[in-house]
Structure formats: C-alpha cells, structure tokens
C-alpha cells in the first residue's frame, strides 16, 4: 500500500477504467453488429441479470454457502493438522507427502471418484469435499511454516519461565503463525470458490443449483447474456472474498506486522 496515492483515487481510478471499458464494449458490439449469442453488450447482460435476479441470487447463495463451508473446513482442518505437524516431526513426515499428492492431483480428476463414494444423491457433499481439498493445502503448508519460524530466543525465554506446552502454543506459536496463516487463507479463499465451481461443473448433471451450473445451463440454452450475468456474480463473489480476507488481515496485523504498516514518507 503506497501512501502517496489517496484513498479516493485508489477507489475511483479502477471504477473509471471499468466504466470506460464497458462503454467501449457497448459501442463496439453495437457498431460492429456482433450477434448477442457471441458477445452480448453490457446493457443486455444487465437486463438478463435483473430479469433472472431471484433465481441467480438463489444460485449465488448456494455457491457462497459451499465456498464458505469449504473454506472453514480447510482453515480449521489445515490449522489443526499444521499444529500436529509442527509438534511432531514424525507426524509431519507421515502426513505431508499425502497432502502434497492431494494438492498436485487435479481436482477434476478425482471428482468422479468422490461422487461415487458419497453417492450421486449427495451431490452438494461431493462439491463441498472437493472444494475443501482444493482450499486445504495453502493453509496447511503456510501455517506449518509460521509455527516453525518462531524466534529461538523467545522459545528459550518461554522454557526459562517454565511455560507449559499449551501456553507456548497459544501465546507464542499461534500468534507467530498468524501472518502466514492469513496469507494462506487469502489464497485458499479464492481456491475454495474455484474448487466449488469446478466440482459443480463435474458433478452437476442436471441437479446443480449453484452459479457454476447456471453458467453451464445458459451455455446449453445459448442464453449468453444470462451466462455473462452468472459470470459477473461469480467474479463479484471472488472479489468479495478477496476483499474480506484483505480486511481481516489488515485488522489483525495492523499493529505489529510489516505487511500492514503504513510507512512514513
């Protein structure tokens, strides 16, 4: 965050660019007479959004819910496993390779397997599991790094004052890991949404109710304006998660971490 650009300008500048681009888009599509099933003008997308708003919002809610659930599962599970890994080298050696394998295997490829395991009648469960898997790894690996990078003199000090294991965890290891955890959560927030969308693409054979399925459905109907409307909502959701994570990070780190500091000019 550079202090030399005032806040209003930092907000206004991207908005002006967005408006300009939308205007250019509208003008080009109209003047070149591009058919609306190839590229609809923004005005038409807006109309489609308003027209289907109730059903699109319902889909948005489904996707939002599964994303947040997956994100929570990944965060809590990732932190708990990271604590175990940081405490026991053996546990880490046993667990970590499998976490990596889970991470490097494309989620699309394991989706059918998960679907079979949870049963086609529990589609939303499969989507939740897949999104959690995708979001899990950055939290695990970042938190392990944070838990392990504690200042050794502080560790000595804690043992000098006979700190118990849980006291060291709560007063030293976890606060030290917080910036790393938040960096992991920033990545995972976006990944949870991507995971939810991909999982729904793979899983949703007519049963899908989330935004991803609305994209597929609109493509099948050649209703491109509605597809763009669904896409716009998806992007907004991703943006919202990103902004929320940034805000949370700033709120928690503003007093002490370099990343959240405003430097004096």
């Amino acid at each position, binding site marked *: 965050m550079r202090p030399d650009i005032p806040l209003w300008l930092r907000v206004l500048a991207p908005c002006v660019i967005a408006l300009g681009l939308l205007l250019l888009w509208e003008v080009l599509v109209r003047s070149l007479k591009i058919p609306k099933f190839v590229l609809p003008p923004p005005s038409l997308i807006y109309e489609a959004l308003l027209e289907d708003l109730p059903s699109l919002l319902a889909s948005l809610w489904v996707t939002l819910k599964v994303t947040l659930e997956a994100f929570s599962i990944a965060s809590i599970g990732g932190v708990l496993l990271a604590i175990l890994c940081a405490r026991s080298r053996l546990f880490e050696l046993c667990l970590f390779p499998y976490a990596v394998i889970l991470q490097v295997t494309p989620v699309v490829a394991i989706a059918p397997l998960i679907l079979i395991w949870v049963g086609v009648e529990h589609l939303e469960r499969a989507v939740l599991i897949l999104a959690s898997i995708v979001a899990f790894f950055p939290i695990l690996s970042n938190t392990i790094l944070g838990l392990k990078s504690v200042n050794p003199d502080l560790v000595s000090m804690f043992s000098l004052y006979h700190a*118990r294991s849980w006291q060291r965890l709560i007063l030293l290891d976890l606060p030290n890991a917080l910036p790393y955890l938040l960096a992991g959560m920033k990545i995972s927030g976006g990944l949870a949404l991507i995971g939810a969308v991909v999982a729904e693409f793979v899983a949703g054979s007519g049963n899908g109710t989330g935004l991803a399925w609305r994209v597929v459905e609109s493509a099948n109907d050649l209703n491109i304006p509605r597809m763009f409307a669904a896409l716009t909502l998806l992007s907004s959701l991703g943006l919202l998660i990103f902004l929320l994570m940034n805000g949370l990070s700033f709120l928690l780190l503003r007093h002490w971490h370099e990343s959240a500091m405003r430097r004096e000019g």
Partner: protein
Amino acid sequence: MNLAPHEFMTGSRPLIRLHDVSKKYRSGTVALHRIRLDIGRGEFVSLLGPSGCGKSSLLRMIAGLATPTSGEIDWPTAEYDVRYQPRPKLSFVFQEPTLMPWATIFDNVFLPLRLAGIPRSAATPRIMDALSSVGLDKFAGAYPRQLSGGMKMRASIARALVTEPDLLLMDEPFAALDEITRSRLNDDLLKVFQAQKWTVIFVTHSVFESVYLSSRLLVLSSRPGRIIADLPISAAYPRDQAFRTDPAYIALCREASSALTSAMGAAVEAH
C-alpha cells in the same frame, strides 16, 4: 553437602557454584574447559572474553537452557521445590530485545507473570513498577516496533525485572546499541541493580563496559574457554560518569585489557 573451608569462616554460601564445568560442542570443539567458580549473592559479575570463548554457553548453562558436557552447577542456597523449580528465580536478557511483536509493551512485560498463572489485575502494579524503573511507563500500550532500539532493550530489561529474580543473566544486551544509548543504559542498569539488590552475570566483550558495571570481572580465554583472570572491582556504588575518568577506573581497564590480550594469546598456547 561439603562446605569449602572459607564457608566455615564467613558463614556465607555462594549463590551458584560451578564444579569443573566443561562444554564440548557436537562438532568436537571444546568451548569451556573445567570452569570452577563461585558467585556470591549481590555480586555483579562480568564475563569478558573474545568471541567464541564460550561465555554465552556458560550463561545458557547457568540458566538451564543448555547442559554441561561434564561437571555440575549447584545452587547451594536455593530453596528446593522438588516438583517444579530446583533453582532460584532467574531472568535472562538476550542480545536482541526478543519482544513479541504482536503484543504491547505491557503484555510483553506481563508474560513471565502470566506464564506463572498470575492474573492480569494482580500483575498490573508490578508491571507498571517494572516499566517505570526503566522509564517506559508512558509506553505500556505501545507495540515494540514503535520503539527505538534502546527503548526495546529497556522493555526487555523490564520483563526481566518483573519477576523480582534472584539472578539476572545478561548476554551482551547492549552490543547492538549505539555508544550514547549504551552508556545511558549502563547507568540505568546500575541504578536498578542497586535498588533491587540483585546478583547479575553480564556477558560482554567491551572492557570499558565491564569495568564500569561490575563488582567482579572474569576474563575468559578462547577455545577452550578458561577463566584466566578474576579481578575484583572494589570501587563503591553508586558509580556515575565521573567514574569513567577516575584513575582507578583507568588502571582497571588497563589491567582488564592486558588480561584480555593474554587471553587471546592463551588460545594459541592451549592444546
């Protein structure tokens, strides 16, 4: 427990007794060789020596943060609590301020009491006392990064004070500070030392600092570390800046310097 002859005469037993303490690193380097040393209550002992003479290792072993390869460290006067703390209360000041960046100065100083299970409300007066004795009472709510290097070190000292330790161990605490800050902190440390009636063991490689502060100066040779000089510094406390130009001070600095020079030479002669 066997008493050394002088104990029958003086009736006082040392706070710490080191019996032939040696430390060998895993690499095979002998850091310390058969250190035999008594430190009495109320002494301000400086350990002076070239880099790598094992003076920090000695301090860490006294703190229980490392164990001797051979020999023993005894606490003849300590009240033994068999279950928990078979030692007097120790505090350690590291070379870096070693504050938790996410906690306010108040919370950093609160830490040792908090770990001992003392509630915040009961600890608050003690914390404020410790902070005001190092001149930081107005900065209780500040975060470490808002403070200068010297102020961070003061906070670190306040954290060591707050437990009212019997023994304060300091590992080159002022080495990273500029000369002016260092000299002011020396004076402030002496003030607190007199007020609290502590025992201090202070590791440094500054001749002037060690002579200025201590009541007893131990010079260590390097590899293996051995005590090659044990100089009493009898100048009375309180000492102030005038002491720095006192002929006695200058003579002691000369003596310590030549001991240090021969300490470097001893390193070459040592097997």
